[in-house]
């Protein structure tokens, strides 16, 4: 069990080590190495998702570790309150940034092993703190440092704890 301690409250999530072993292990590793401490939810779009884990409160991008293989073909769907990895155009480019779906986003699911169809890998789900997620998705956002949908007041992941 993972707990994201944010300035909006705690969000608990369960990682799926069976269906997304590489991605879940990568997230756990980032949590244990304190990579996420002090990062923010920097991209918040109500009706879509809230994304975080890569920027600090002053919108400096943290240098992440190596990219991981995309496990989006594991059958898990980008449904409401699931957690998935963000990435660039390259399907296998996820490093640390993740997002919480705040609605069923079918178009993010895996449809084929090509650059358009790879989809986004779900590797866990929220088990507690949905109300916190609902508060986060509703905050006021704007454009900061060339990035859109950045919350006006930083939503900070102060610490991430891992329970066995």
């Amino acid at each position, binding site marked *: 069990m993972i707990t994201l301690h944010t300035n909006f409250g705690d969000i608990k999530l369960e990682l799926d080590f069976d269906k997304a072993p590489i991605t879940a292990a990568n997230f756990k590793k980032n949590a244990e190495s304190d990579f996420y401490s002090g990062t923010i939810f920097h991209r918040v779009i109500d009706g879509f998702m809230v994304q975080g884990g890569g920027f600090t409160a002053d919108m400096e991008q943290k240098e992440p570790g190596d990219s991981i293989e995309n496990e989006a073909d594991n059958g898990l769907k980008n449904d409401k309150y699931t957690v998935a990895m*963000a990435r660039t155009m390259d399907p296998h480019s996820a490093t640390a940034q993740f997002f919480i779906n705040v609605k069923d986003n079918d178009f993010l699911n895996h449809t084929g092993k090509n650059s358009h169809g790879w989809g986004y890998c779900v590797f866990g789900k929220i088990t507690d703190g949905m109300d916190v997620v609902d508060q986060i998705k509703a905050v006021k956002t704007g454009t900061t440092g060339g990035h859109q949908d950045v919350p006006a007041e930083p939503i900070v992941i102060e610490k991430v704890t891992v329970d066995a």
Partner: protein
Amino acid sequence: MTTLFISDLHLQPERPDITRAFERFLTTQAQAADALYILGDFFEVWIGDDDDSPFNQHIAELLQAFTKPTDTKSNSTKSNSTKSNSTRPGKELYLMVGNRDFLMGEAFASRCGATLLPDPCVIDLYGTPTLLMHGDSLCTSDTEYMAFREQARSEMWQQALLSKSLDERRAIARQLRDQSKSMSSMKAEDIMDVTLDAVVNVMQSSQVSRLIHGHTHRPAVHSVALADNNLSGERIVLGDWDSKIWCIEASADAAPTLHCYDFPNEQP
């Protein structure tokens, strides 16, 4: 079989976002290509191939990795013994200097596994002779710059500059930059555009109907009326990497096309 052209990245330590975009470009789009041409102003400033700043070293390493043949053995599945450890040939890399990095020379190019191209130069692009230039020499209305360009490209002027210590050269570069805001501007309106006469002249004297260049930060595809043979030529202008990735892609099956990509933000 594809060939990519880029220019005007203006790489500099102050813009890690551009470096990151280039790193991603090398490991994604460029991996599908056989050759990459960088047509000038790859660096924002270049004070000599002997400048071994950590930033320059990092870029050189990126290019070395790109041009070096690599083992294509799978790195994540050690147990998968059916995968052969074949060697992927390195990519071809061609560098041309621009008006910012005109001191870039053979030493840096060979260090990166690249070939240094003269400006202008004609290549055979899948059967079509194609003229490559940085583009600054086409801006003939900028008489002041043209005079400086002539001077700065002379052996004597360059030797005089390169004989100064790295610290001295760094100071000169800083001074030049502070003197003129437009020197460090990415905005097209601060850079003069090409003159049409210069374009027609160089295309006709080089006997080509296609020209690819950068410099002006005005990415576009223009048709050029070539008087000699009533032919319509084509001038494709690359854009700068201030906020977007601009790149021309050509293959045996497809004429060169200008593409624009967003910087690779991580997203769903």
